């Protein structure tokens, strides 16, 4: 070993490998919320923000408590959740089913992919009047709108996910003479699950948007109807209560998918 020179200047090597590594800092999101609401509260109370621009957050909260105590909250929320569940279940299950068929059979792919591409960009809200003519003004047209709106993104996500399943795993299945059905059920479906679930996130967000649109057009109860009524009376407190409920609904849906992902995809690296 050669000797290291003793006489020269010493300096530790500069660290330059920091950043570019996402870390989990959950509390930051909450802090942003609290600071923002605190700022609005302060601004609206001091008059720095006029009460025509934004309602006072604590008044919005009081309105929410009123709504809850009067029992009207559930009267509006339950039908909305019902519409969401029924509509999204129909759309998502049809979407996953057809997406898998497209992924597996070239004939079905050739036939349906152009069709899906054609209906994907249509704003589904534009079709609501049509659905009302077809299905009537009651629940069925709302289910249909939400189902149709969740169907297309689910189809696209699903067949993309099936396409992305590792071919070498399918070949492995064939090399062990697994039946076609086993390969689909045990290799293709679980392999496509991550893609299907991330598609589900988008579909369900779309479902909430369409839910409100449908309820605005013709419903006695429902979050959309509640917001519409508040808006036409220019009741900003109630308007914001409605919007907040939608946000919370979205957060819960997203949390729910998170739980499903954790349970189904815990094998992921």
């Amino acid at each position: 070993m050669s000797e290291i020179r003793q006489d020269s200047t010493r300096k530790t090597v500069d660290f330059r490998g920091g950043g570019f590594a996402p870390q989990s800092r959950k509390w930051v999101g909450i802090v942003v919320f609290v600071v923002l609401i605190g700022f609005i509260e302060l601004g609206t109370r001091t008059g720095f923000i006029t009460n025509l621009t934004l309602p006072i957050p604590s008044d919005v909260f009081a309105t929410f408590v009123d709504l809850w105590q009067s029992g009207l909250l559930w009267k509006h929320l339950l039908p909305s959740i019902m519409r969401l569940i029924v509509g999204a279940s129909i759309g998502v299950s049809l979407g996953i089913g057809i997406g898998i068929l497209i992924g597996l059979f070239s004939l079905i792919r050739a036939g349906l992919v152009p069709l899906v591409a054609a209906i994907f960009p249509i704003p589904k809200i534009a079709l609501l009047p049509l659905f009302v003519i077809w299905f009537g003004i009651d629940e069925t047209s709302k289910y249909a709108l939400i189902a149709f709106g969740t169907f297309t993104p689910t189809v696209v996500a699903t067949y993309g996910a099936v396409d992305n399943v590792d071919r070498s795993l399918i070949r492995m299945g064939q090399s062990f003479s697994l039946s076609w059905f086993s390969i689909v059920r045990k290799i293709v479906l679980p392999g496509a699950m991550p893609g299907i679930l991330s598609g589900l996130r988008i579909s369900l967000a779309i479902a909430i948007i369409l839910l409100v649109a449908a309820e605005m057009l013709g419903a006695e109860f429902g979050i959309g109807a509640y917001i519409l009524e508040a808006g036409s009376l220019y009741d900003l407190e109630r308007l914001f209560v409605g919007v907040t409920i939608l946000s919370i609904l979205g957060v819960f849906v997203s949390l729910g998918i998170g739980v499903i992902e954790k349970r189904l995809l815990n094998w992921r690296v």
Partner: protein
Amino acid sequence: MDLRLEAVGHHYGDLEVLSEIDLAIPAGKIVCIVGPSGCGKSTLLRLIGGLEQPTTGQIVQIGTPPTDSINPLTYVFQDFALLPWRTVEGNISLVLEDHRMPSARVTEIIANVLARTKLTEFAKAYPKQLSGGMKQRVAIARALAVKPAILLMDEPLSALDSQTRELLMDDLVGLWTRDPFTSVYVTHNLNEAVRLGHSIVVLSRRPGRIREIVDVTIPLGERELGDPELERQQKHLWNLMRDEALAADKELLNV
């Protein structure tokens, strides 16, 4: 059960990949196939296992596979091909589930192959928790579970570091010595070939033809790392392959 390849040739479109391959794969022997990359080794293995059909010639089985063989022609892949969402056990039971066996029998087979590949304590682990060498052991266990008449291995050790490769070679030799199996073993590593092969088939560059078949007579169990006779054989193989490898290398640059 023996296999015989009769004048097998294969094209992908206009690209001739294999030409005039005549080869016998006798029961109980390991036949190694070496050749420069792109010469059609993997293709040949896919043809042998029935995952693809040869353009010309035929591959015939001579004799019937043992009656207890669940999947006579069984692969071990270079990239392991384990299902990441199944445990070690689950990956092995996957290939047994289609055969309507009583579950006690399935459990027994799984326990047996895990013991033979020294994986018993990892039965409940997921692939992501295992090192490359362990993953390949799982893939070998899975292949043994279906009692293959012929094991088709496509560069099974190429994704592993050299220490792990040595260990797994010892494991394969151990498995073969206790219970000789028939195997076609594709590799580009000449050391693996002289350690594991009873005969070594040298393919030319694309289109792959048989250049020479080298027999190694030393019993598998007695082949030590650094054995002079093996070194000599390996050197001979390298001399055969060097020009082909050089030419193949240049060819790829011209594409």
